[in-house]
């Protein structure tokens, strides 16, 4: 199983550079998720690895060998597309076996392989249907089966679940996670959905504006986001950002802004000692706990503007000075709109970002 390495990969369309030197190493059998908003270059990166887009600069290495001059078929990979890209005129069995038939494998071997992968994805009874007679989820499975049948070492997924409805997406996501455990292969998965990224990835690569913002395990990225973009992109509801000043008073460092003054935990404040002035304070909704008795410098007072009932939890949109803050609250908590509530901040949930560079402090 080869590892994949991207070295200073760039992509230009005419004069416009959309990828600015991507450096990325994917270890053997790793499930790598490229995630980012539309237009961040994640799909372009994937398509360059696949060979569907030309490389403008830099190099792609698969198992140590440069491949950017090779045709897609010579790179030994399989791909699942967003719109499934099935061959509409072939039935499911022929769709699955297309690559094998092009390789002129023996007929018995092809049939066995088709049956094997159809079983894996649960399509056995649909082998003689055309894609037109399948539902979205079934088509998705055919696309998956077609990729599996090739026995490639590398699997590429280009937003494979985004054409499915929410319920089916959740189900397919679970199946994908299962499949990934069963067939340990190199997988690169592109999505704009941070939930997919968090649940599936061994390693998440967050991209924005043609640059890699941060890469690492889902946990690392969630707990230690490298900059404001990553912090705001991962997690739902997204992280709250408040403008603040760092002010030392005695031994304690405070992040102080309109309507709040939060003490920075002692072990963090040591590294921040030298910094004074404007910062951005980031706090995830999940790090804010409703607690009217919390001490003032470990909490924040929020006035409730809107309450969205989503079942066991309610999402409250609140104001704090000029900023909006989202919090989550158990639905049974009796609150009224316009009321001011106190939320304790978990000390490890305090994130600080530089106002200029937006890098984490």
């Amino acid at each position, binding site marked *: 199983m080869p590892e994949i390495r991207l070295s200073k990969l760039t992509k230009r369309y005419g004069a416009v550079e959309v990828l600015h030197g991507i450096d990325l190493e994917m270890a053997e059998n790793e499930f790598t998720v490229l995630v980012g908003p539309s237009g961040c270059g994640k799909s372009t990166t994937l398509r360059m690895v696949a060979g569907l887009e030309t490389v403008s600069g830099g190099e792609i290495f698969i198992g140590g060998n440069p491949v950017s001059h090779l*045709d897609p078929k010579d790179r030994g990979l399989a791909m699942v597309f967003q719109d499934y*890209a099935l061959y509409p005129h072939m039935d499911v069995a022929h769709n699955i076996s297309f690559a094998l038939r*092009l390789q002129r494998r023996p007929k018995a071997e092809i049939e066995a392989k088709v049956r094997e992968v159809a079983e894996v994805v649960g399509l056995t009874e649909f082998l003689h249907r055309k894609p037109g007679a399948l*539902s979205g989820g079934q088509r998705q499975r055919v696309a998956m089966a077609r990729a599996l049948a090739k026995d490639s070492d590398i699997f590429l997924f280009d937003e494979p679940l985004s054409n499915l409805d929410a319920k089916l997406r959740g189900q397919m996501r679970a199946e994908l996670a299962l499949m990934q455990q069963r067939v340990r292969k190199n997988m690169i998965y592109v999505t704009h959905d941070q939930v997919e990224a968090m649940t599936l990835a061994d390693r998440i690569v967050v991209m924005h504006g043609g640059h890699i913002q941060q890469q690492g395990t889902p946990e690392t990225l969630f707990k230690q986001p490298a900059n404001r973009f990553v912090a705001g992109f991962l997690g739902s509801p997204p992280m709250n950002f408040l403008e603040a000043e760092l002010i030392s008073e005695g031994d304690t460092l405070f992040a102080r802004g309109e309507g709040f003054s939060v003490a920075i935990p002692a072990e963090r404040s040591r590294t921040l000692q030298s910094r004074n002035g404007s910062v951005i304070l980031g706090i995830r909704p999940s790090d804010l706990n409703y607690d009217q008795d919390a001490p003032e410098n470990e909490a924040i007072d929020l006035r409730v503007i809107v309450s969205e009932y989503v079942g066991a939890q309610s999402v409250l949109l609140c104001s704090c000075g000029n900023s909006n803050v989202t919090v989550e609250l158990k639905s049974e908590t009796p609150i009224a709109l316009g009321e001011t509530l106190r939320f304790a901040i978990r000390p490890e949930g305090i994130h600080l970002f530089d106002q200029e560079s937006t890098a984490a402090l």
Partner: protein
Amino acid sequence: MTAQTFNRMTPYMFLIPAAVTMGIALLYPLGYMIYGSFRDWDPSQNISETEFVGLKNYITLFFDPAFHESLSVTLIFAFTVVVAEMLIGVGLALLLDRNIRGISVLRTLFILPMMIAPVVVGLMWRYMYHPTVGTFNRTLKSLGFEGIDWLGQHALLSVIIADIWQWTPFILILSLAALQSLPASALEAARIDGATTWQQIWHIKLPLMMPVLVVTALLRLIDAFKVLEVILVMTEGGPGLSTEIVALRISRTATEFRELGTAAAMSNYLLLLLLFLTMAMFAISRIQEARAARLARQIEEESG
């Protein structure tokens, strides 16, 4: 008239002008022709003075070797040009379906022949085929070859070449449109699956274009059966009967032989043939639609 009936009648009132035009321009001559085909009718006679002969005109034609000849010339002409135009047109479309500089200029150039009036096409090719001063023979002779008797010995072939030149663009346009509406990702999937350019054409592009190609071929076939002007100008059906297609024979029967009834019967034979082809075309598209609808229903039932 109550408001309700008035409302119900309104759409029909708007249809009246179109219906009248259709009646005068299409149904009246058609009925006239069918009526005339059962009569022994000389152009000097008013149709009311003509004698009813039943199916005589049809029966005579059925056993008339000259009509057979003309019919077989038409069939050979039509099938040859359609096959050749399909092969060349689809081939060109596959070549032109790419993004290279100047491709739109090329496409426009390829489409030009179709825009020229058929009579002009006929005159142009007649000149080019001229045994002594024609472009082809002068070129051949300057290269040291013998001239070819284009419109004499090889009249049918020459006429076929001219038609291919004029109508291949029609196939090209429709094939290009079909190619450009193919699902791009299916072709990308085929590239990843290891298909070469040829295999992509053979296994993916052509099968997916097939519905469009079938209808295109039928349209061209219907047109080719009715061709008249180009051949009239180039050969007038000669030499002998070698290029006398049915449309030309109809016109000669009516004007030279002064047998309007027979000409009308001949037109009806041609009409039947074209009707059959048209019905086949409609049937094919209906079958395709029905299949799509059935699939949609099937999916709905399963998910519902």
